[in-house]
């Protein structure tokens, strides 16, 4: 999985991220949206809210509730995924929500709900991290007040090497996987999961590599958001057409 020159199957260095493409504001109906391509991962996120919440017993009196659904399209995986939500998707929905919660100023909108809908159109490893990256941008695009954007990146161990941003094949043959999410300015890790086997030394190395990855991706997020705002102030037409239907 790692050749003589220390390069990976897809030619990347151990600490090299896949190419990442971020787009903000890609959907018409959603209040906010974003799209991420990270290697072959293709994920689209739509955000609605703050809006009224049903059923009423979900109301939280002093903050907005956040709801999150992560879903893999049936055609997103090598073998077709059954459309019914899997236990894996249920758990990922929860950890993504909990990764985003600390960044949202939810107390500004008590008794409402903010809905985050994530569609993984193609999955190639590290989709929970890529989903967080896009979802945070979609929240910002919806005008939801945030403390800052949440970045996310995973690190793994493959054949004894610690490498960043594993794709599917590396993940499959890897010995450990460590996805994290980070609010860089608050120095707050908002998601961490691990499975596999890492000594304390390996863990420390991997963890720091993941933090570094988050910081890099954080820059890309900020760029994407700026591009969107620039575009909006440049093109009055597109802005108007959006307002018309709201």
């Amino acid at each position: 999985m790692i050749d003589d020159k220390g390069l990976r199957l897809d030619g990347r260095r151990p600490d090299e991220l896949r190419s990442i493409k971020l787009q903000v504001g890609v959907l018409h109906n959603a209040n906010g949206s974003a799209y991420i391509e990270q290697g072959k991962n293709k994920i689209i996120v739509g955000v609605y809210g703050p809006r009224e919440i049903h059923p009423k017993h979900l109301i939280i009196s002093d903050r907005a509730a956040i709801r999150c659904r992560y879903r893999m399209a049936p055609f997103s995986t090598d073998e077709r995924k059954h459309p019914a939500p899997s236990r894996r998707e249920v758990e990922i929905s929860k950890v993504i929500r909990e990764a985003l919660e600390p960044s949202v100023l939810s107390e500004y909108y008590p008794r409402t709900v903010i809905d985050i809908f994530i569609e993984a159109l193609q999955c190639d490893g590290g989709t929970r991290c890529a989903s967080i990256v896009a979802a945070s941008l979609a929240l910002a695009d919806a005008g939801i007040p945030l403390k800052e954007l949440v970045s996310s990146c995973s690190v793994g161990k493959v054949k004894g090497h610690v490498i960043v941003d594993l794709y599917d094949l590396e993940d499959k043959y890897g010995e450990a996987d460590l996805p994290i999410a980070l609010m860089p300015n608050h120095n707050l890790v908002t998601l961490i999961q691990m499975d596999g086997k890492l000594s304390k030394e390996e863990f420390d190395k991997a963890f720091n590599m993941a933090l570094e990855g988050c910081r890099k991706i954080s820059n890309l997020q900020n760029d994407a958001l700026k591009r969107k705002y620039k575009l909006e102030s440049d093109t009055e037409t597109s802005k108007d057409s959006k307002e018309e239907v709201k």
Partner: protein
Amino acid sequence: MSTTPHSSEILTLERDHIIDLASKGKRIDNRAPMDYREIKIQTGIIEKANGSAQVDIGQTKVIVGVKIEAGTPFPDTPNEGVQTVNAEFTPLAHPTFELGPPQENSIELSRIVDRNLRESKAIDLTKLCIVPGKKTFVVFIDLNMLDHYGNLIDASTYAALSALLTSKLNEYEVKHDELIIKDNQQPLPMNDYPIPITFAKIGKTLMLDPNIQEEHAMSARLTVGIDNEDCVCAMQKGGLGGFEPSEIESAVETAIQKSKEIRKLIIEATR
């Protein structure tokens, strides 16, 4: 249980305005009654699928992925492949979908797409049998609504057709009852290019390709599917109102003409 849907989200004023425009042959987005919005077709966007396409009709966006896997044939067609269509009204596509959209809408949609393809024999299912009565290819056609701005039926069918027309089937061998999938691929065998054309009745006027505002103002909807030989292969009326017989006859005629244009568009995009 099928239940009369709410229509509260559109203002009565807007509805009246759309109906009023319709009486003058005009539309809220300035189209002529028989115009479609711009149709944009992209294929090959999901590398892990056997075929895929995204179709935008105006602001409406649908993505379709085709996966072809080995499975069991139906007992009454032991020598044929299996076609299965599933539609997902993803909640990001429309604010009302969050409320648990009436499942009947997604079931109806998938069944209309399925019928258009099935009745025109679009996929040549007779070429998909692996071991008669035992093993066959199953063609999973998964429809994923991304942005609902009206006319999901046409957008979904065009996307399904585009995805199928660009789908690849792996070659295979059967050795000692084991299926061995090879790497080289052939196009999925196709017979026909059925094109549904959807009309909205607004006031007394028929309009093609209703956008979402028009769907809320329409009294009824009629979809006419036309195959390569200009024959009707599928129809479906929806909505709370009805059509006069003469309206239906003229809709069929229009659909036959209009389907030629759109078929050409799809053929070009999937060539």
